[in-house]
């Protein structure tokens, strides 16, 4: 090993000067590999975060999510049926868990902010913080005196929310802010690195879900890309070997064994792959930014992507492996059985020709890999097109959605419902007066709504027949959306708003 390192050191210093003499070759290899390695490192990091890395909380493997599911006894189970009293009952009576926090996530208006942003709010208990142990940028987390039934309205802001909506105000601790209709006192801001477990089975399963499939698909794509790049670069190295053939033949004539020639080629390829690896890390850095811009809502834990020890170890291994592959392939060109012939043929136009077979294999591999990638990509694109171009079943052109929130201070009651009804009726009639508005319809939920507002349906014998998502709409709803009715008619207008 010591000998290997010593000859490598000598060969590296030699390779450094020889590579400067072939800038075109060096630049092409580095450019090809750095872009490919960048993509590979980026997707490796994604796969590592999703599949291997534990969640960024202490004792992450011991964190569990308990969800209520309703089983109908016929093998069907329905989730998302938690009721507040049921959850409180769990909370008070649980004996299995060391710590336990109820979590309810919801979007609410930050009412006293000029822009009234709709922020994601997690309603949690003090144990939420003792489980996840966030580092704090400012202030503190909830303490035991702010638990259940203490009726203390305090809020901990995430670093991102604090930056975006509270102008990074360092004096924010102790200030009040209006979330929904309730005034909360700000007691802390979490550190930038803390990621709120918004949707806390194991916790990891819940967070990662089936996005591993997407990550694996991406990984197989970049590996295909890498293999194409490897065949390309192998071709370049074979040309380089042809160029270096004379030098290697002299070395062989002076006593160099195959391993000496391997080390000599390895030194050259190592310099190139290491530079490509470093540039690849930079490319991956941009990739992380791109992924978080494009896929933060589709893929979980994107904010955890970055160059960590695992990424560096992976990059280091792949860089050495690639260097070894290129060195092995190109040092094979020296024919030990005919050293004299090789030396004398040099410089007379009869230098090494890469064999036809090798070239054919390289071309076949490239074509096969490219075809495979194209086929894979076309399947994915085909599915995406089908999703995008699939008719929605209703008219969505020139249809706009306006959301009206319950006014400040108005709590949920039969009277407030009437008030809202009157308010929205007024808005509707005002809108209808506008020349550019053709028709207005009111509904409880938007036309396309992700989430469940469902109710169980039973037949005449009180037997459950399933649960159905529902929406409350007015008589204009079907006209605007041009929803065809199979049978019967739509609603007629209700004259009395009460």
């Amino acid at each position, binding site marked *: 090993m010591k000998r290997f390192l010593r000859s490598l050191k*000598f060969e590296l210093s030699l390779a450094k000067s020889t590579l400067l003499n072939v800038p075109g070759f060096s630049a092409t290899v580095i450019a090809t590999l750095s872009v490919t390695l960048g993509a590979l490192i980026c997707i490796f990091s994604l796969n590592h975060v999703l599949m291997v890395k534990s969640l960024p909380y202490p004792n992450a493997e011991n964190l569990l999510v308990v969800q209520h599911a309703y089983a109908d006894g016929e093998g069907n189970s329905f989730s998302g049926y938690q009721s507040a009293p049921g959850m409180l009952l769990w909370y008070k009576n649980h004996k299995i868990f060391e710590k336990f926090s109820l979590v309810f996530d919801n979007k609410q208006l930050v009412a006293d902010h000029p822009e009234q942003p709709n922020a994601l709010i997690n309603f949690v208990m003090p144990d939420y913080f003792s489980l996840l142990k966030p580092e704090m940028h400012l202030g503190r987390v909830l303490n035991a005196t702010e638990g259940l039934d203490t009726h203390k309205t305090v809020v901990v802001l995430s670093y991102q929310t604090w930056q975006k909506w509270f102008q990074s105000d360092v004096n924010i601790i102790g200030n009040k802010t209006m979330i929904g209709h309730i005034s909360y006192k700000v007691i802390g801001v979490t550190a930038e690195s803390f990621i709120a477990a918004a949707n806390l089975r194991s916790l990891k399963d819940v967070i990662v879900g089936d996005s591993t499939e997407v990550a694996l698909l991406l990984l197989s794509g970049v590996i295909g890309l890498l293999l194409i790049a490897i065949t390309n670069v192998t071709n370049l190295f074979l040309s380089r070997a042809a160029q270096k053939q*004379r030098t290697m033949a002299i070395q062989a004539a*002076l*006593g160099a064994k195959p391993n000496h020639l391997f080390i000599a080629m390895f030194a050259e390829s190592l310099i190139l792959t290491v530079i490509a690896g470093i540039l690849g890390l930079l490319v991956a850095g941009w990739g992380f930014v791109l992924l978080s811009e494009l896929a933060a809502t589709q893929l979980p834990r994107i904010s955890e992507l970055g160059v960590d020890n695992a990424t560096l170890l992976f990059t280091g291994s792949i860089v050495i492996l690639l260097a070894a592959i290129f060195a092995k392939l190109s040092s094979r060109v020296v024919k030990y059985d005919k050293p004299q012939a090789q030396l004398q043929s*040099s410089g007379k136009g009869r230098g090494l020709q890469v064999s036809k077979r090798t070239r054919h294999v390289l071309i076949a591999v490239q074509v096969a890999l490219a075809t495979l990638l194209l086929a894979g990509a076309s399947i994915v694109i085909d599915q995406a097109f089908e999703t995008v171009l699939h008719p929605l079943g209703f008219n969505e052109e020139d249809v706009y959605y306006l959301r009206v929130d319950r006014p400040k201070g108005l709590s949920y009651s039969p009277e407030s419902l009437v008030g809202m009804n009157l308010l929205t009726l007024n808005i509707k009639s005002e809108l209808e007066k506008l020349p550019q508005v053709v028709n207005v319809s009111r509904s409880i939920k938007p036309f396309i709504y992700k989430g469940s507002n469902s109710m169980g349906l039973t037949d005449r014998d009180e037997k459950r027949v399933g649960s159905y998502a529902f929406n409350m709409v007015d008589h204009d709803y079907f006209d605007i959306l041009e929803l065809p009715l199979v049978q019967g008619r739509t609603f007629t207008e209700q004259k009395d708003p009460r």
Partner: protein
Amino acid sequence: MQKFVIAILDSSFKSSIIIDELSVFDNVALPLRYREPAMLATDIKNEVLSSLEKVYMSHRCDHKPNQLSGGQQQRIAIARALVGNPTILLVDEPTGNLDSKNGDAVMAMLAKLNAEGMTICMVTHDPRYADMAKRKLHLLDGLIADEYRADENGADEFVSNEASAQEAL
């Protein structure tokens, strides 16, 4: 059993056996780097410097071959042949592509090495340089035609004809 180290200096591909990317020092050191067991870096350095000293090229250690003249390049090739302290040196047309001045210098160097005890076996077409040998074998169409040995005064003395020379070998 005595161990002979034979170095071969083949001028049929002359300066082409020097690697252009390597410095003079590294070119000469090359055979030592491939030795088994491995030599210490200081030993390599000493051997290379003493070898370059013998061909009067130690002041050109850091030069690249393309900064040297043809004669100097040939001396580097000789230095590399000498670096392993060979017992016998086989030399093929060492002056083949050199002008007479450089050729004389190379031959003077070989004569000095021979005087120091090294056995040198040289192939040449140049009778002037052939006359410097202590024993001469004339070859004709791949066969030995006759053999001469130098007497004490340096004059050639006929030894044998073709048949007896073949036997002697």
